[in-house]
Each structure stands twice: as structure tokens, then as C-alpha cells.
């Protein structure tokens, strides 16, 4: 085969095409101009011009999370790369597959403190799953293909490739993805069968079992979610999930207990506390979930399925660790369950469900329904009703509204819910919504937002307008950084240090200044009308300002350092002894 010479920039574009990329989110600058020139001369890959590089990464996350594909980002050197860092770490924490290309100063200037030079691979090393600096144009194609493989294989994550400008100009040889095999990286996908068999025996003999599932099921693809649903139904066990795992099991099923953890439901947390067998599939025993470690599910045997061996026995020691892809493990579990003709202990299960139904009857998500002021929970309940049966995706920012959205919006399918779980990045939701909307132009995409988070990346309204992405920004405006205020109320004597949202813009006028639709609801009666109008807008973004009760707090809540059975239900629970001294230092 005659060797075909391409420039580095052309190699980048060809590799992206061969990897099936159709959209790349980015922002140009001096060190990536050759790649932007190559983008200009083709039509297969659509470039989405964001307004800030952090948003490019979040948009790619929204795209990746809602499609199951690898998201793609292009930024320039120096500030372009450093602006992307928050997004990269966000993707690392939530295991979102991304490839981020950054420009770099020419190789002969590296290390000379050149204009817009940063040690990008050094800075992003702990913020990526892996990263590369390509100094030889003939290694560029191989590196690109490797990066996509690493990003999507095993526990997915962001991979960065730093490409000096001279490498983008240089002529080199292209090789297709089929000719690239990674030297070392072979994550274990298939589980050890003996372990799965052990797990099945434990599951079959459980008296008070619970499934505790996480983002790993979503990452394993829609088939894994189907298998999970099948297995949970086969067993008849209750199931709860982390924030990242919502949607993997349908929320409309009766076996669903709601989310667990700090702001999880009473029934989910008490079922975790009292269970005798815990089946963790694709969750990582995060501190938001476990609460006080020494009192985490104290009487239980634990099965932990995870594709990342370093997740196992990291925070919580487990009895049966299973390394493998959630889908592959579930497939084996179902097969062995059926082959061995297993059936759950029906009498024990009946008693267990009786106990759970008692906790459910506590109705922990109840709130003070009033006509006097819009409760944020009410606004979300109305949004839920309006979205029911419609093809929709939801993203969130970070804070109280995020937890309320997780509590009040039900998801029956995976990949429909996008939120910054691990890193907790305010400003995630709007760009992620844009990414999801561009991937699903005909769907309704709502960013459930708070007024403070929205301000962190509101420049992206410009991006949404430019590409006619009709995202809906549903702001629960309580004029506070609500979660900060809630913690100050519970832990710092109601001294609201710097948590008031001073000098807010008029969100309706703000929307109009961009040519978007702006709506506002200040009374309970207006909420439905505003939601209806919002959903009717299909050709441009819509910003909705819902003036909610500024004093409402998010409950239930397990204060930091407390166990699952020490849950606060609402303002009537005394906050004074809510948190022990050692819990105060926890975030």
C-alpha cells in the first residue's frame, strides 16, 4: 500500500472520523489553528463553538452520557487547557468517556515559558484517566486511536492528547484504528465464574437483601440496565441506586426504593442499614452514600461488582468481590440463577417487604404543601407531570435543586439523567444540556438549575442560541446558594456567610437579550402555565425563573458522620445535635 502523507491536523480529523465522531466541542486559539483549518475544510465533523473551554468539556460529557459514545473536545494551549481542567476532573470522577485534544506550543519551545504555554500533561495527569504529549507526527494516529480505546474501555474516563503546533503542520503517515492494539491496557470484562456462583448462593439464601446499584450499570450500556431489571424482577428484591445510577432500573417499578445516601429516601437508607445481603453493582461506596463507615450496613454480607479493581475494598471491606463489566456479570448471574433453579426465600422476603413498606409509609419526601409560596419540590412535581410520557433528558447543576431533582424526577431508562456527582461542579448542567440536546435534537432537554449555579456558565446560552439548541433552563431561584445556606443553618448557627445571591440579573430580560424566551413564575398558580409555555418553545433556548421558597431545605438528610438510621426528616428535627464534632469536618 503506498504511504499516504497527511499533515498532523489532517491526521487528527481522519482519526476522529474513523472513530465515529460526529460532533466536537471546542474553542480556537493560536496553538490549534492548523486543526481548525482542517475542520474548516471538511463537513463530516460538526464543530460546536462554546464560550468557555470548561463548558466544552461539560457539553461533551452531556453528549457522551446521553449517547453512550465518547465525547470529544478541542482546546488551545495554556489557558484553553487549564480552563478545561475542571471538566476533565468532573469526567474522571463520574467515569465519562472523553477525548480532549489540546494544542501545545511548538516542540522546540516547550519548556521555554513560551506564550500560552502550560505543562498540560503535568497539570492534567491527576485529572485524566491517561494523557499523552505527541512529539512525533508519525505517532499521532496511533495515539489518537489508543486514546479512544482507553477512554471507552474498562472504567471509562477522559483522555487528553497534547499536540504541539509543529506536529499539526508536519507531514506524517496515517494508520487506521484496526492496526492499533494497546500494549498493556486490557481491563477485565468477564468475571471469575466461581465468584459469581458464590454470590448467587449468598443471594438465594438472603433474608433481607437489597440491590445497591450505581453509574457502572449505566456505563455498561442499555443492555446492562435491561439485565439488571430482569435480575431484580427474578429475585423480587428491593433496589436502590446512587445519584449516578438513576434510570438503570425503572423508577416506576414497585421494587424501586428511590435514591440512597445523604439525601436519599428513608426506605432506601433503612433497607441498607438493616439488610443482611447487599448486592452492589457498579457503585463505589462513596462517602455520600455510606455515611458513618463503622455503622454502614453493619449486619450485612456484601457482594461488590465493579470493573475497576481499585474500587473494591477501598472504603468498605466486602465479602465477595467480583471484577467485571456490570452487564457481563449480570448475564452470568441470571444464567446461573436460572440453571440452579434458585428462588428467593419467599417467607423472609415477605417479612422484609413488610418492614420496608412500613418505612415507605413514613412518606419521607413529603413537604409542606402551601399556596402561599412556590415550594421547589412542587415545581419539580409539576415538571415531572408535564414531562411524563415525553421523550426527555434532564441535566442539573449542583446543590439543593440537584438533590430535589434526583428525589422528585423519575427515570425509567438509563442515559436520561446527567448530573455532576463525584466532583459536584456548579455550572455543569447548562453545557451538559446543550451536549445532550445536540445529540438528541428532537428530545426535550431540561437543565434543572439554581440561580447561583446558572451564573457559573450562563455564557453558554450564546452557544445554545447559535446552534438552535432549544434547551430549557429551569431555575429554582431561592436567591441563595441553597445547599451552602442549609449547611450553615444546620452546622454553623445560621450564620449565612456569603451564601446570599446578591445582585442577580433579571433572568427574563437576560433571556430576551439573547433572543431566547424568558418566563417567570412567582405564584403557585403560575407554575403549570410557565411549564406549558416552556415546553412549547422548540426553536430556541428558554430560561424559566421560578421564585421558590428561599428558606426551604432539602430533606431527608443524613448529616455528615452519621449513620443511615440517623436521618433528619425536616425542620422539625432538631439540628442542634444533628452533627457530631467529628462529622463537622466532613464535607
Amino acid at each position, binding site marked *: 500500500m503506498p504511504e499516504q502523507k497527511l499533515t498532523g491536523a489532517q491526521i487528527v480529523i481522519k482519526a476522529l472520523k474513523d472513530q465515529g465522531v460526529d460532533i466536537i466541542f471546542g474553542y480556537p486559539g493560536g496553538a490549534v489553528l492548523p486543526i481548525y483549518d482542517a475542520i474548516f475544510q471538511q463537513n463530516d465533523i460538526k464543530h460546536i463553538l462554546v464560550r468557555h473551554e470548561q463548558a466544552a468539556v461539560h457539553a461533551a460529557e452531556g453528549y457522551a452520557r446521553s449517547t453512550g459514545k465518547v465525547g470529544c473536545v478541542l482546546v488551545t494551549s495554556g489557558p484553553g487547557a487549564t480552563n478545561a481542567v475542571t471538566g476533565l476532573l468532573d469526567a474522571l470522577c463520574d467515569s465519562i468517556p472523553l477525548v480532549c485534544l489540546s494544542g501545545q506550543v511548538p516542540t522546540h519551545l516547550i519548556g521555554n515559558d513560551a506564550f500560552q504555554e502550560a505543562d498540560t500533561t503535568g497539570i492534567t495527569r491527576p485529572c485524566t484517566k491517561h494523557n499523552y504529549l505527541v512529539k512525533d507526527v508519525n505517532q499521532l494516529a496511533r495515539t489518537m486511536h489508543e486514546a479512544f480505546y*482507553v477512554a471507552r474501555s474498562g472504567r471509562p474516563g477522559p483522555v487528553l492528547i497534547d499536540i504541539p503546533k509543529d506536529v499539526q503542520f508536519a507531514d506524517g503517515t496515517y494508520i487506521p484504528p484496526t492496526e492499533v492494539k494497546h500494549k498493556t491496557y486490557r481491563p477485565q470484562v468477564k468475571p471469575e465464574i466461581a465468584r459469581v456462583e458464590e454470590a448467587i448462593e449468598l443471594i438465594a439464601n438472603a433474608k433481607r437483601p437489597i440491590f445497591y446499584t450505581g453509574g457502572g450499570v449505566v456505563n455498561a450500556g442499555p443492555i446492562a440496565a435491561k439485565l439488571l431489571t430482569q435480575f431484580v424482577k427474578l429475585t423480587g428484591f428491593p433496589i436502590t441506586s446512587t445519584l449516578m445510577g438513576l434510570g438503570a432500573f425503572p423508577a416506576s417499578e414497585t421494587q424501586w426504593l428511590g435514591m440512597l445516601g445523604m439525601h436519599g429516601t428513608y426506605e432506601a437508607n433503612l433497607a441498607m442499614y438493616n439488610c443482611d445481603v447487599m448486592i452492589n453493582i457498579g457503585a463505589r461506596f462513596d462517602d455520600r452514600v455510606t455515611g458513618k463507615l463503622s455503622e454502614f450496613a453493619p449486619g450485612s454480607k456484601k457482594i461488590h461488582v465493579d470493573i475497576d*479493581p481499585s474500587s473494591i*475494598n477501598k472504603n468498605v471491606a466486602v465479602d465477595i468481590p467480583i471484577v467485571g463489566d456490570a452487564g457481563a456479570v449480570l448475564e452470568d448471574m441470571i444464567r446461573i440463577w436460572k440453571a440452579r433453579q434458585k428462588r428467593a426465600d419467599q417467607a423472609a422476603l415477605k417479612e422484609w417487604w413488610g418492614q420496608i413498606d412500613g418505612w415507605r409509609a413514613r412518606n419521607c419526601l413529603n413537604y409542606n404543601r402551601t399556596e402561599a409560596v412556590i415550594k421547589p419540590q412542587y415545581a419539580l412535581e409539576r415538571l415531572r407531570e408535564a414531562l411524563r410520557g415525553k421523550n426527555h433528558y434532564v441535566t442539573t447543576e449542583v446543590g439543593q435543586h440537584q438533590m430535589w431533582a434526583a428525589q422528585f424526577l423519575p427515570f425509567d431508562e438509563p442515559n436520561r439523567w446527567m448530573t455532576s456527582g463525584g466532583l459536584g461542579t456548579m455550572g455543569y448542567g447548562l453545557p451538559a444540556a446543550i451536549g445532550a440536546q445536540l445529540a438528541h435534537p428532537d428530545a426535550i432537554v431540561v437543565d434543572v438549575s439554581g440561580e447561583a449555579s446558572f451564573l457559573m456558565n450562563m455564557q453558554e446560552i450564546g452557544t445554545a442560541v447559535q446552534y438552535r439548541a432549544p434547551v430549557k433552563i429551569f431555575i429554582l431561584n431561592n436567591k441563595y446558594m441553597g445547599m451552602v445556606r442549609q449547611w450553615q443553618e444546620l452546622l454553623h448557627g445560621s450564620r449565612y456567610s456569603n451564601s446570599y445571591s446578591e445582585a442577580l440579573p433579571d433572568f427574563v430580560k437576560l433571556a430576551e437579550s439573547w433572543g431566547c424566551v424568558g418566563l417567570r413564575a412567582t405564584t403557585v398558580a403560575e407554575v403549570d402555565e410557565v411549564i406549558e409555555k416552556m415546553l412549547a418553545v422548540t426553536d430556541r433556548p428558554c430560561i424559566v425563573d421560578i421564585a421558590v421558597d428561599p428558606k426551604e431545605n432539602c430533606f431527608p438528610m443524613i448529616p455528615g458522620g452519621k449513620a443511615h438510621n440517623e436521618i433528619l426528616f425536616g425542620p422539625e428535627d432538631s439540628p442542634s445535635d444533628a452533627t457530631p464534632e467529628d462529622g463537622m469536618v466532613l464535607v
Partner: protein
Amino acid sequence: MEDKIEKHTIAVLVDNEPGVLARVIGLFSGRGYNIESLTVAEVNNADHLSRITLVTSGTRMVVEQIKAQLDRLVPVHKVHDLTDEGPSVERELALVKVAGTGDRRIEALRLADIFKAKVVDATLTSFVFELTGTTAEVDDFVGLMAQLGLVEASRTGVVAMSKGAAGF
């Protein structure tokens, strides 16, 4: 959980590529693990493989985490816990400079002989000894030299290998 602190010697085979050592060290500093010593050099020129030997300490759970986290790094081929996997030999090399004259000089030379240290540099007022041995032996030798005019010591840290025919 057992909270006893254990000391482990871990051997890691990695691609000899830029940044790989930074990844390993960054992992230890970022996650708050201990490094007591770390040595690295290329061991296979054709395949560009380097072998890192590191000595670390922590509870059993932390040591298991360290190994899992090392194994998770993309350029890492293999991770072996030599402490766990049966008998192994551990050695370090030290260069020890001692200055002095008269009895002290003679005593230093005599001790070097007992420790089977080699003289690799000599002047009328100084020696540089080369010593290979276990960490404890090197500690002992350096400790004795401290009383006989020790100027400086340079140590490689531990390199280690499992006993028997089986390879890495």
C-alpha cells in the same frame, strides 16, 4: 479491620515512556500513601520496559489499594507484591564517603573490610566505599561510619527479586 502497619516491597513493570514515573509518584502523593524508597531503571531496552521497585507501608487495606491503583495506570504492565508472594532477596547499593586520618582512617578501612565494602576512591584524607547489602546492613555500616568521619552517603534504595526459578 486489621489496622497493623505493614511494610511491603512492590515491583512494577512499566513502559519506559515520558511521565510514567510522575504518574507513579503522583499517585502516592495525591492519595497520601507512603514511599520509603523507590528505584527505577530500564531493564528491557528492546521493549522499552522499566522496572520500579518501591518500598511502602500501610495497613493491609491501604497496601491492597496501592497495588490496585498502580495496576490501574495505563502504562503499567505488572504489579508484584514481593513481600506477599514468598521469599525474595532485597539489596541496596551505597556509596559512603569518610574523611579522616590516623586511627580513625584505619578503623574505617577495617570495618569496610568486615562489611565487604570496596574502596572505589581514596585520597590521603578520605575514602569512598561501595557497599551492597540489605537495608539493615547498609544502615549499620553508615551508622558506624558516622563515628569515624562520615562526610556523606548516597543510597540507591531497595531493588528486589523473588527467589527461585520463576520470573516476573
